């Protein structure tokens, strides 16, 4: 709960330092800046984990009080996506060759105070990877999609409408799983210059380090940026099991199977009397 308090304190500060930027900035009214903090910087995944809601607070400092837009981009650790399409072959619906998209974040959320396309133009959004349509998953993939025929890896050049259908499918399926989300009303200004946004992590959110970029837009350009990190990690019993299963898979497998067999024997022994 330290986050919001810090943010509020920062928001109260502007009157004093505002003279300094306006001094250096000359007649234009000085540099605008943005500041933000998360209520939690670590999310612990335990047996009762059902997703989490992180609150992001921040403030816009602009002595000239120009119209400002705030865009928040949260990206989870990168996870390559392997996707296949069902096709009708001789009356049967079969999987096509899978296509691999690299560079896709495991979690993505774009929040802004108004729809992204109203805030900045296409190329700016594309460059920043702002919005699910501008995720950088196409940048390397457009030039080189890895398709797997048979057991060999084959590199194919693939562009055009078909490619965008695949790309949209990735986003659609990820949105369905609650992993990708774009909210054109996700940032709310609660007071002059003070804003708030909520980041909702689903249960299936990948573990790892998340990066939250908080951008201040004025006149369609990003004028100030802050970056915050968020760590999602398994703790306690869950972490111990996960580490065991991945670091010593054979002993984990043998132990869990031994448990299964003993449990079966124990049940049989317990039921013997009656």
């Amino acid at each position, binding site marked *: 709960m330290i986050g919001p308090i810090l943010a509020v304190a920062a928001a109260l500060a502007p009157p004093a330092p505002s003279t300094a930027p306006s001094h250096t900035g000359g007649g234009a009214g000085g540099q605008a800046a943005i500041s933000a903090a998360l209520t939690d910087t670590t999310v612990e995944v335990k047996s009762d984990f059902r997703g989490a809601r992180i609150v992001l607070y921040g403030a816009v400092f602009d002595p000239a009080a120009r119209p400002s837009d705030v865009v928040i981009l949260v990206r989870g650790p990168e996870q390559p996506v392997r996707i*296949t399409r069902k096709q009708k072959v001789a009356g049967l619906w079969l999987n096509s060759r899978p296509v691999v998209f690299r560079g896709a974040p495991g979690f993505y959320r774009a929040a802004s105070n108004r729809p992204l396309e109203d805030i900045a133009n296409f190329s700016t959004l594309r460059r920043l990877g702002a919005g699910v349509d501008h995720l950088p998953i196409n940048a390397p993939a457009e030039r080189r999609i890895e398709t797997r025929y048979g057991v060999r890896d084959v590199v194919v050049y693939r562009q055009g409408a078909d490619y965008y259908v695949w790309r949209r499918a990735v986003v659609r*399926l990820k949105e369905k799983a609650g992993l990708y989300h774009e909210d054109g009303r996700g940032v709310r200004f609660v007071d002059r210059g003070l804003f708030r946004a909520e980041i909702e992590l689903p249960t299936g959110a*990948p573990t790892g380090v998340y990066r939250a970029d908080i951008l201040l837009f004025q006149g369609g350009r990003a004028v100030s940026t802050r970056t915050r990190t968020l760590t999602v990690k398994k703790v306690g019993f869950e972490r111990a099991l996960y580490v065991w*299963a991945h670091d010593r898979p054979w002993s*984990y497998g043998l132990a869990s199977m031994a*448990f299964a067999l003993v449990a*079966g024997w124990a049940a049989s022994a317990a039921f*013997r009397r009656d």
Partner: protein
Amino acid sequence: MDIYLPIAEVAVNAPLIVALGAFVGFISGMFGIGGGFLMTPMLVFLGIPPAVAVSSMAHHVAASSTSSVIAYGRRRAVDFRMGAVLAAGGIAGAFAGVELFRVLRLLGQADLVVAASYLVFLSVIGALMLVESLQAILRRRRGQPPPPRRDRRPVWLYGLPLKMRFPRSRLYISVIPPLALGGFVGVLSAIMGVGGGFILVPAMVYVLRMPAGMVVGTSLMQIIVTAGLTGVLQAGRNQTVDIVLAVLLIAGGIVGAQFGARASSRFRAEELRSVLAVIVLVVGLRMGLDLFLAPDEPFVLMSGLGG
């Protein structure tokens, strides 16, 4: 009462999973099958990744089969020698099956092979078993005597070398057919993520001609070995075994299996077979239906990069 599964990375309703384990355990104990062909589709329906469902289920199958095989053993309804021969074939089959599955995943056609195997094997076996058991029931109702046991000894069963005595089953046959049967079931168990009981039970009755009373217990014994091996291999090679999920399923399964094993002695063998046939047929057709119906969402995300 939701609980987070550390390997599957999803939250599930714990009492629901325990109840599912108990239900499948009951079916397993009653019919002498692992129940994997029922459990896998249900777990996937509940949102658990298929790879984790298949692997963790092997533990449930092993536990509930152990629970009921001991119950059958007490009634002297297990042919341990036949079980060991089948299991030997099953071990070889499971290793081959895991490799085959890996290649299929690389080809991106694992889903197709799984769906097609379910459709073909479950439907054919379910239909054959249903016809046979209904005929037996009808004959009994009409008071007709059972058809004379065909004493024609098939060459491939009795003519092959390496003959072995199976005193409990009162058989003196070549070990090659049971070994081959065990191997075939082992391959299927790795591909379909099932114990293979639904194939083993009818094959033991109709092909190996074992006495009906021995079939269920012996089939369960082979299933323990195959499921146990598959479970360890999946954990070791793919890290897809979720012990929390397995514990929940086992908690229900071992109790359900006890009641199932007890309930089975109250019904006639052919009536049990007819019910099993219907279950097998319905699941097979349902799984195969996906091959023929136009999907709502033509794209499917595949977990992991697969090899």
